[in-house]
């Protein structure tokens, strides 16, 4: 007698602890083995792109905060850079330095969340709280700067909304000093833990050619061994003045482009961001952060594409201007969305537990995927 077997459809999300928000994955499973993954998006859709058409250029900035809400500064940065490019506007040195510092601090904070939640996905709870303890310091610093902990609305087209408070740079230096210790602690507790390596090495391998074909960017692309970082390859703002490395996945514990590499590239990147912060913090020139902010933004007719290296990859803004005070069209190129698109390719024929680990290593933010 033979038993009838059939594949089971397992609905993972939108209310699931490890889909990192309201992502819904439709898994076709054969026992524990996943045969197919279909992501369903749109649970957090807020019509960002359509919304911008009804607002003036400067009014869009707070809305960009809500794209990748773990990296609001990076989103601000991307948007204001794009509009400045459209306006051909030169911003003061001081503004450039402060922008780079806050963007890099934000990158560290964002990677801490990525690493911590990835730890939870594979069952390690303690590293998560270690990460959040240090992220808290960054959030406090940024709160002191902007008054908000999460959605900062800090940058303005042509400048910044606030100047640095007194003693802020000292606090950043203190943080930089003690943060290297945290990275070491994290490596001891999680990165080189035998069970953690067993769980993540050789799982969900993303080869470099597949990554490029899917338009993957950010740490995920670099983990596949491609040395591509917009900060180095097409330097914007003042990134060409700093000395930092681009960490790439080397397959230390398994194959190049596996889940462990994607995790470890982020750890290494935090260190590099810290280098940039340390180089920039001592050289902030004096000046007025608001002097270049235009009274009225009315760009000439034309199109512009601006991009920045956000913690999750290449964040691009494509803006079409019809000469009015409102943008005619704003199209966002969200890194999380493009990175998520590859999930079916790398999850196939893995176990259900691996899907959770792989999704954690992709590190999506649904605010940005759905917009």
């Amino acid at each position, binding site marked *: 007698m033979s038993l009838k077997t059939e594949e*089971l459809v*397992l*609905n993972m999300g939108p209310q*699931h*602890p*490890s889909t990192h928000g309201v992502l819904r994955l439709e898994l076709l499973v054969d026992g*524990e083995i996943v045969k197919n993954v279909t992501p369903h998006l749109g649970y957090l859709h807020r019509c960002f792109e359509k919304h911008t058409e009804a607002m003036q250029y400067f009014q869009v900035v707070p809305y960009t905060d809500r794209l990748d809400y773990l990296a609001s500064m990076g989103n601000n940065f991307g948007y204001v850079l794009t509009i400045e490019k459209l306006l051909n506007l030169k911003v003061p040195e001081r503004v450039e330095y402060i922008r780079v510092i806050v963007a890099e601090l934000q990158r560290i904070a964002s990677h801490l969340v990525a690493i911590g939640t990835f*730890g*939870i*996905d*594979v*069952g*390690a*709870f*303690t590293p998560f*709280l*270690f990460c959040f*303890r240090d992220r808290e310091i960054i959030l406090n610093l940024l709160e002191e700067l902007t008054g908000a902990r999460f959605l900062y609305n800090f940058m303005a087209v042509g400048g910044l909304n606030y100047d640095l408070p007194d003693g802020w740079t000292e606090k950043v230096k203190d943080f930089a000093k003690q943060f290297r210790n945290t990275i070491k602690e994290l490596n001891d*507790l*999680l990165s080189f*833990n035998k*069970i*953690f390596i*067993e*769980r993540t090495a050789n799982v969900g391998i993303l080869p470099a050619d597949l990554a490029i074909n899917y338009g993957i960017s950010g740490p995920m692309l670099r983990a596949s061994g491609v040395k591509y970082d917009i900060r180095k390859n097409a330097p914007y703002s003042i990134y060409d003045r700093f000395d930092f490395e681009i960490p790439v996945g080397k397959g230390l514990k398994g194959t190049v482009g596996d889940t462990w590499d994607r995790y470890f590239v982020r750890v290494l990147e935090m260190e590099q961001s810290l280098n940039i912060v340390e180089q920039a913090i001592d050289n902030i020139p004096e000046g007025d952060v608001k002097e270049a902010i235009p009274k009225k933004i009315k760009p000439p007719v034309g199109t512009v594409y601006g991009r920045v290296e956000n913690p999750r990859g290449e964040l691009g803004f494509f803006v079409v201007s019809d000469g009015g005070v409102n943008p005619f069209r704003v199209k966002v190129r969200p890194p999380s969305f493009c990175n998520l698109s590859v999930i079916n390719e790398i999850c196939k024929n893995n*176990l*259900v*537990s*691996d899907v*959770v680990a792989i999704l954690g290593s992709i590190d999506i933010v649904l605010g940005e995927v759905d917009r």
Partner: protein
Amino acid sequence: MNELLKDILINVLLAAAPLFLWILPYALLAVYLERKVSAFMQDRLGPMRVGKYGLLQTIADILKLLQKEDITADAVDKKLFNFAPVLVFIGSYAAFAAIPFSSIYIGSNIDLGIFYILAVSSLVVAGLLLGAWASNNKYSLYGGLRTAAQIVSYEIPTAIVVLSLVIVAGTLNLKEMSEAQTANIFNWYIFGGPELSLKKFILIPFLLVAAVIYFISSLAEVNRTPFDIPEAESEIIGGYHTEYSGMKFAFFFLAEYANMFAVSAVITVLFFGGYQSPFGYLGNLLNMPWLIGLEQIFWFLFKGMLFVFVQMWLRWTLPRLRVDQLMALCWRYLIPISLVNLVIIAFISLL
């Protein structure tokens, strides 16, 4: 006839006494301890609001669970759904009847003590599987299947290790095992047992291996990290208890903590001298024989809690294994090693 009834009644009451005297307070204590241990490992304070240092937090939690609406979804198999937590609870709590807390108190001093504990605690798996199936939820089903596979597999190395200890001790009775390890710390089975001869010293490394294997497989049997795959919150939400809420959930929860102490108690009896003090008794020194029994209870609970603490420590340090790795660990390493270990111990004992 009346005499017999009275006898039975007294024995039943005695066997149930640990449930009320120790296990229920222990569960409250252990939940509190788990939260505090995790808090200190993670640089935070843990519960601080209810009572001094949050001591009454667990009581507040239990009260909350009691008040909660008992949700039973429409599509569940109601009879099995309601019965499963009870079965799990019975399975894990019945094991305590045979555990020797002290020379003056043991719930039921049966000759097949260790065998009884192994048998009764495998009842738990039936309860978990029932609950998982009755929930009519795919995640619960996954959890149930994972639990069944895991617990059944890990019972084999456990049983083999227990068997090798039975060969060394020559008895299945837990009280006799504890009595044999009296007088000083080097009489414990982890140090080769009470017999003073060459045999003792040859046995030590193999008994150490046995103790390690027993501890690992007992972790898997009580679904603790790194083997908490059946519950795996980040993968299959809660596994078998996804659909349970209120007091039914509390039953699963309490059973898990009771199980933690049960396996710690067994490892204490098998390897670490049971209720025996490592240095001799204050009661002997002060010539107060009644004190010895109390001291023994203290030592037993102390050792048991020590292993419970180690389990918590591991839980907050290690990530979780994957299903196939868990099975590979059991079938490719633990079972062969423990089998070879059993044969060697048997040979040495024949010397």
